[in-house]
């Protein structure tokens, strides 16, 4: 018996004894009343149960596959896909391999998720702030937007928008032209874009350069502020940089202004940038649905900051912009970012519903692959690995963010 100094230690010892965490003094009790021993037995039993079930399913599967003479393994990936894919970022033809087809699908998933996430965050922030507006009309409209879009299944919304593209919009010959350079018809939406010119490639590079410069500048400004207390006007300077760099390159490159306009040729439009009905309705559905959830998160985040924080900042004599940047936002973001990430992850996962309206995303291509090759297990496994990887990367990011953002307490 250890030496017990006070009541608390006595209690701790007793509760540890009850949990069986400490060996008891007399060993005369039978072994099955020992909690540690029983815990081991339970675990071994649970693990064997899982292993046996897995083994049973595995042998069944092997037997079934053998009977249906389906080869296992990922060898099919290098075979010829022999199906066409409607839209693709990289070149693809039916004589390419399944591996390349799946890669096209993965890129399409990334494309729709990436654009979707940007739009969702923008609309979600606007709607979340609108919900808190002092204007009754604005706040009510935002409320209706949030409530209605949250309560209708995403798949139904996708079908609805796809139906609008197919049934409501006219054929290319009677296409709606709401403004110069924008065409809406049942083949999708067409937008005029600047015609190809080498200057645009260089503008892209200069944009990346601008981002890098701003990143370095921010670090320097923050360090200087912490050391000297001087505040650098980072927002206006970085906006200037991000506009000026590409603009300068554009001017040097000869300021090309020629536009690539969509033109009706035969039964369809040519030229311009085409947003297919599948991509358009998928993007629209995903963005509207997810932005309703994001709006709620933003609203809750802003409301979570107690009024005293703003008042205290005002009492210190901070300007409104600094109150927002230095006091409100850092605290609100701590509340907003974790659920926001999970919503954006949901958007990425929901993009798999593309399979229902025929947008060739990863799931859609895998589904075609499964039905053509019969490699169901490999196909489903590929889908799961793809999304698990995305989820895992996101949670790694979240862990990093949480550790960075964790309140440093004294």
């Amino acid at each position, binding site marked *: 018996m250890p030496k017990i100094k006070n009541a608390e230690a006595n*209690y701790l010892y*007793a*509760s540890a004894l*009850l*949990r069986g965490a400490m060996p008891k003094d007399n060993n005369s009790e039978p072994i099955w009343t020992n909690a540690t021993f029983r*815990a081991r037995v*339970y*675990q*071994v039993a*649970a*693990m064997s149960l899982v292993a046996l079930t897995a083994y049973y*399913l595995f042998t*069944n*599967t092997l*037997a*079934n*596959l053998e009977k249906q003479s389906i080869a296992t393994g990922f060898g099919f990936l290098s075979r010829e896909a022999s199906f066409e894919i409607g839209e693709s970022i990289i070149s693809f033809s039916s004589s390419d391999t399944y591996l390349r087809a799946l890669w096209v699908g993965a890129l399409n998933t990334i494309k729709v998720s990436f654009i979707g996430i940007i739009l969702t965050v923008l609309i979600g922030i606007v709607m979340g702030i609108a919900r808190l*507006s*002092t*204007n*009754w*009309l*604005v706040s009510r*409209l935002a409320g209706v937007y949030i*409530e209605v879009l*949250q*309560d*209708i*299944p*995403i*798949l*139904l*919304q996708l*079908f*609805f928008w796809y*139906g*609008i593209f*197919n*049934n*409501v919009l006219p054929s290319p010959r009677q296409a709606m032209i709401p403004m110069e350079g924008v065409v809406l018809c049942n083949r999708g939406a067409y937008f005029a874009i600047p015609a190809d010119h080498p200057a645009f490639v260089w503008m892209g590079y200069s944009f990346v350069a601008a981002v890098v410069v701003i990143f370095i500048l921010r670090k320097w400004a923050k360090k200087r502020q912490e050391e000297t207390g001087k505040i650098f006007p980072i927002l206006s300077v970085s906006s200037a940089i991000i506009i000026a760099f590409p603009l300068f390159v554009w001017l040097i490159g000869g300021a090309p202004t020629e536009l690539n306009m969509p033109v009706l040729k035969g039964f369809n439009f040519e030229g311009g940038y085409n947003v297919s009905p599948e991509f358009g309705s998928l993007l629209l559905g995903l963005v509207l649905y997810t932005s309703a959830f994001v709006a709620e998160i933003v609203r809750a985040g802003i409301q979570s900051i107690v009024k005293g924080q703003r008042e205290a900042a005002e009492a210190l004599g901070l300007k409104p912009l600094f109150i927002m940047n230095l006091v409100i936002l850092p605290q609100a973001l701590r509340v907003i970012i974790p659920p926001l990430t999970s919503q954006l992850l949901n958007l990425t*996962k*929901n993009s*798999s*519903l593309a*399979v*229902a309206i025929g947008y060739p995303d990863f*799931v859609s291509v895998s*589904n075609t692959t*499964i039905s053509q090759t019969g490699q*169901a*297990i490999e*196909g*489903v496994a590929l*889908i*799961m690995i793809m*999304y*698990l990887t*995305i*989820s*895992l990367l996101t949670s790694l990011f979240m862990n990093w963010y949480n550790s960075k953002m964790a309140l440093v307490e004294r």
Partner: protein
Amino acid sequence: MKNDENLSSDDKAFSTAVETAPLNDHNVNTQEVLKPPITETGVIGWLKSNLFNSPLNTLVTFFILFCFYKIIPPFVKWAFIDSVWFGPASGCQAGEGACWAYIPSNIRFVVFGLYPAQEQWRALIAMFIMVGTVVYSRKRERWNTSLIYVWGFGTLLVAILLKGGLLGLAPVESSKWGGLVLTLLLSVVGMTAAYPFGIVLALARRSNMPAIRTMAVVYIEMIRGVPLISLLFMSAVMFPLFLPEGVTINKIFRAQTAIILFTAAYIAEVVRGGLQAMPKGQYEAAESMGLNYWQMMRLVILPQALKIVIPPTVGVLISAFKDTSLVAIIALYDLLRTCQSTLSDPKWMGFSNEAYIFIAGIYFIFCYAMASYSRRLEDELSAGQSH
């Protein structure tokens, strides 16, 4: 300490002042009381403080009113004035407006799917029982052991009614179940089965035994990391391979399993939140009373932990309800799929808007009811906390 006393006596003085204030009214000539200016009360005051309280807000209000002016009249014209409410599809082709005649003409198929026409009363009663059981369970004073019997009995009745083959009811193949009936079945059964499974998973994740904890973590994180559609594909194309030769499980049951496995992982995370929020003293108090693990969980921890996570739990159930629509992709005739298949009928082909708005209304009513129930319960529970 002294400060506190001062403060409370001040409070008292203040509250007596407030209480006595109305008494003075009797002494004042009512004629002399100045009413607030008309611009601050009533309709005008409301408009001023809610719509035109700043230049920017005035601008925004006018912009929105302008949009209303542009959007609402054409919509009203489409939905109500030019619309066709009854009659065959041919009546709609001529009109410019909405074809609400779609609803009376197709509602039977949309709600019941391929369920035999003369047996549809059974499906209708089954639906009422499912909704009724959920509605019955809403009151907190009914959350006791007898509720389990109500659910057990309800489930049995629904199964007998839908499947038939008993009590002189004609048997109906499960492949014929469809429409709203199937949607409700998948969601109600899914929620009921996923809930206890989710609790077990949450307990396993909080367990002291490393092997059990690891298995629970792997399961929960894996399921939460993949989209539901991949599990439904698995149920459609992989489950048959898992089973020994000659054994087949019907498609609805397989999809149902996938939904349960999926929802349980989300429930588990919500319940884990509740378990983590329990103060350690509750565990220690239960242990010091000599309760064993299951007694402690059943009598002390879970009743409290589950109560504080009711709002997020309802959130999970709402998404589970919406997610049942995904079975349409693996060709089960749920509400969404029956609606879609009516649209492949050449007669109704162009009327997808009307059809989708109609079933969106059905989904909305169910989800909105659950969401407002959750909000009310949240208020009740938080009111209980503060007293």
